[in-house]
């Protein structure tokens, strides 16, 4: 079993490769995991990007299934983006919630990007699990996988990568009070390309 100490998860199966440039403040509580794909063909692409700061995730699984820890698990990173409305997507909004969300999403005359921003601000006010996870309460796991611009699809997550993902998630369950219901694929949470992490299995 892995040991979590000061935000570093210690195990022979996890290579520490911390990029302070993507750590954006404290991560006080972990409510969920968000699974991503990198959109590039190698781990090094992500590492190069992380060196410049900006967006990033806490863990990365390369093509061979090697797991890297790229940010402390007690530090926030920018990996989620603007969130969708959870109750709206699941069709479980109360009457007043549905009214509020549709007022935002269908606001005639307002640009679609602005509607997405307004929806995000609206959802942020809710507590988890009534909303999707945010950067401030989730751990991001990147799986290295390229995006084929011609076919408009991410490459499939390999068996080795899925094996590592399953193991990693099992370990994170031990350290944080989360369950399978708290694991999300990135496009389910935010407006992203539909096939991202679609073949990730846990």
């Amino acid at each position, binding site marked *: 079993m892995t040991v979590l100490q000061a935000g570093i998860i210690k195990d022979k199966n996890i290579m520490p490769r911390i990029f302070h440039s993507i750590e954006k403040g404290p991560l006080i509580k972990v409510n969920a995991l968000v699974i991503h794909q*990198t*959109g*590039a063909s190698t781990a090094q*692409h992500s590492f190069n*990007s992380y060196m410049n700061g*900006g*967006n990033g995730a806490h863990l990365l699984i390369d093509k061979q299934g090697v797991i890297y820890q790229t940010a402390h698990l007690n530090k926030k990173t920018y990996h989620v*983006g*603007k969130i969708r409305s959870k109750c709206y997507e699941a069709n479980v909004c109360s009457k007043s919630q549905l009214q509020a969300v*549709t007022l935002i*999403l*269908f606001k005639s*005359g*307002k*640009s*679609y*990007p*602005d*509607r*997405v921003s307004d929806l995000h601000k609206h959802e942020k006010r809710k507590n988890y699990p009534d909303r999707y996870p945010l950067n401030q309460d989730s751990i991001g796991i990147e799986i290295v996988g390229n*995006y084929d*611009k*011609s076919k408009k699809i991410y490459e499939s997550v390999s068996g080795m990568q899925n094996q590592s993902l399953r193991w990693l998630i099992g370990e994170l369950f031990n350290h944080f009070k989360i369950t399978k219901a708290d694991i999300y694929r990135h496009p389910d949470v*935010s*407006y*992203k*390309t*539909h096939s*991202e992490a679609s073949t990730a299995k846990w």
Partner: protein
Amino acid sequence: MVIIMKIVNIFMLVLLTACSSLENKSEFIVLSVDSAGYDRKVGEFCSDFNLDKNEAQSFFERAQIISFKELHDNYSFLPCFVRGKAQFKKMMCDWEIRAGGTGEVVCGEEVYIYGCTDCNDILR
């Protein structure tokens, strides 16, 4: 002399490549708006998204060619799109603009991804 010729050839190749790049916006002309649609479920909030030819042209004049990573990190990829045809130099291209300010142009084998942070006035 041979070395000089080789250097000149390389220079010309680089120059020609630069000139043929879609970053030369003045030569990209939207010819038609052919369709509007959406990827997923019916009733998408953006399903009424549409553009005319001038708006599509304006988008591509204002948008920047970006990497897929930049699209992923910085833009909302919305399920609603408008598609049409364009001409770049003598090439016929297919274009697509999505309601979240992202776009795509396919000219032959080449695929270019666009993002516009200054297009909210036409994305409504």
